[in-house]
């Protein structure tokens, strides 16, 4: 396979090389997912930063197609769980069963043992089942019957949730939302993009586009390692802390972002720098990912529901008000 060959050749990638590989993957996915450059970029940032992605939007906007396209192009093992009210934790993590031939209890892995897991409509299952998945997300391992089994590496969860329906759904608690590195909204296509999507469907004469596999698990890990090489200047860290702190003191916010939000913001900014072929993060990177990284981590005051103000608006306002790093560095830097 082409991807396997490339992976063997590139055990270690520089941020620029990783960014170029990621750009190739994104270009391939764009042939299948039409007119969604921003959500595609954000999901790629989440994968590069080593986190899990929550896609929150209405049905039929291409969430499942997006997740499957990433799995195919990145060469990752892909499983999907359709969350329903009667789903049990063992249906997610797997369970031991009695093998009559060997007369032993044998563990049968659940769908969580994969590289890329699509958790479709995660808010349709009870909290107990949600928690089983979220524990796996946080620890990258599953503990069943006293034994701990590690999950494959990389392990990425792309969960989807419908933000409109309330009947028969179980909203994710804030503590569990915090486990997602970022939240992405798809949004509707413009009229021209929608026309292009229909025309592409007619042209290929098949329900879905066939994507090439351009990468593999090892290369994804190498790209993640390249993100760790991205520098973050001290003033920029102060800026991140100020942004997170501002979510805790904002007048509309009841519970602000956790320190985990600051970590997510830094990692996403570094991944954003890699996508721009840089080995240093800038304030533009932080501002670009702030809403996606922080908005789902804050709880607004209840009265704001009436005023149609959502967390994205509040974080956007915070980004526009918190002072960015000054032009001159606090300490002189040498070439």
């Amino acid at each position, binding site marked *: 396979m082409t991807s396997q060959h490339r992976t063997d050749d590139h055990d270690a990638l520089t941020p620029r090389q990783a960014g170029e590989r990621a750009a190739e993957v994104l270009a391939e996915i764009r042939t299948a997912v039409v007119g969604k450059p921003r959500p595609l970029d954000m999901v790629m940032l989440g994968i590069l930063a080593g986190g899990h992605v929550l896609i929150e939007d209405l049905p039929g906007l291409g969430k499942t197609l997006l997740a499957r396209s990433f799995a195919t192009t990145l060469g990752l093992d892909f499983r999907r769980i359709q969350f329903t009210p009667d789903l049990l934790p063992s249906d997610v993590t797997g369970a031991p069963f009695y093998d009559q031939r060997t007369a032993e209890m044998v563990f049968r892995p659940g769908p969580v043992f994969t590289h890329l897991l699509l958790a479709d409509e995660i808010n349709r299952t009870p909290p107990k089942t949600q928690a089983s998945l979220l524990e796996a997300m946080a620890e990258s391992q599953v503990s069943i019957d006293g034994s701990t089994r590690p999950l494959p590496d990389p392990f990425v969860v792309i969960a989807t949730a419908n933000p409109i329906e309330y009947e028969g759904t179980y909203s994710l608690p804030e503590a569990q939302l915090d486990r997602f590195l970022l939240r992405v909204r798809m949004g509707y296509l413009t009229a021209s993009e929608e026309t292009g999507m229909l025309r592409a469907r007619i042209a290929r004469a098949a329900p879905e586009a066939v994507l090439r596999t351009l990468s593999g698990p090892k290369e994804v890990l190498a790209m993640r390692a390249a993100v760790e090489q991205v520098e973050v200047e001290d003033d920029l860290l102060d800026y991140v802390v100020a942004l997170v702190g501002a979510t805790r003191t904002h007048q509309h916010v009841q519970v602000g972002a956790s320190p985990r939000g600051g970590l997510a913001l830094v990692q996403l900014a570094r991944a954003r720098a890699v996508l721009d072929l840089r080995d240093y993060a*800038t304030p533009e990177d932080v501002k670009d990912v702030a809403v996606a990284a922080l908005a789902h981590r804050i709880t607004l005051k209840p009265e704001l529901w009436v005023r149609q103000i959502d967390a994205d608006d509040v974080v956007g306002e915070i980004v526009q008000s918190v002072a960015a790093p000054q*032009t001159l560095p606090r300490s002189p830097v040498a070439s």
Partner: protein
Amino acid sequence: MDEHDATTGTRQAGEHHQDRPAAGGRGRPGAAGAALAVVAVAGTALGAVLLRPGRSLTARSGGPLDNSAVVILIALGCLAAGVLLSSHYRSRLGYDQNLPSFEQRLADAVRVTLIAAAVVVPVLLLSMHDFPSGGGSPAPEQTGDDDFPHRTLPPFTPHPGSGAGHVPSITLPHLLVVAGIAVLVLALLVAGYRLWRQLRRTEVPPPAGTYRPAEQDVLADAVDSGRRALLDGTDARAAVIACYAAMETSLAHSGIARRASDSPQDLLARAAGSGLLTGPHATDLTALFREARYSTHPMDGTHRDRAAAALDAIAAQLAERAAAADDPQPAADDPQPPSDTPPAGGTGGPQPRAGAHR
């Protein structure tokens, strides 16, 4: 030098206001207000110094208002100033009669008040003044001040022409008072002159043939500052950062200030929002700054050269646009003297030239 600065400042102010269709040809309101405030404060202080009692706070009178001639002159001055002010106010309102009812009533009230004040103030001033009945100089006894022993000394006869009982000695407080009065008079004259200039400039409409976008001068200044920073810098990283900082400072001084939450890209996008900085050069310079500011990998002369090249390209772009903007100027009918219509890049600020920093 002051004349030149004031002319330049007013020209730029006029250009700024040309961007706003509702604004007229007004000068800088801040400078006029400051000059007016100095005139008011210095005038009041000067009046207070001149009218001080001199002998004691409980004295009945003192200062120059003891002199009837001065009182009459002040009264005549008030009358003339009131008449002039009233006529000026009427002339300003003369072409704008379509005022709302409330503003019309207010304008009528001000007009009547000005006319009345022009008459009433001199009359009150004259009627309240205590003119001497005999026509001679006021007698020392009229002050009722018996605490001064020299006034009761009969053997001493004053000099016929002096009018005082003794030769006044010049002491340090006297010198300080005189110096203070001189400073106040000087401040009053300077502020009055500047106020007069400001008020006169508001009546001169800006010539149509000299219109240039204000942002163009702003960015030309910024490019020049950045070029100086490149020349001064010894370290490539520091030079690139200083270059961008100088541009940012120039932009801030010229009205495009960096907001606290702005990233470099935000500021440049706003400065180039008018389309003056098209092309990749401004983006390249911003990218260089970000690399110099937020990375630690080595930077060398190549980066400095790239910054210089970007600055050159920006400067050339601005110069080209300035030339294009000045092309229709000879064809335009320009009745203004040359001092009020400086050519582009002349006294209006540094004109960028490609390759000047090398």
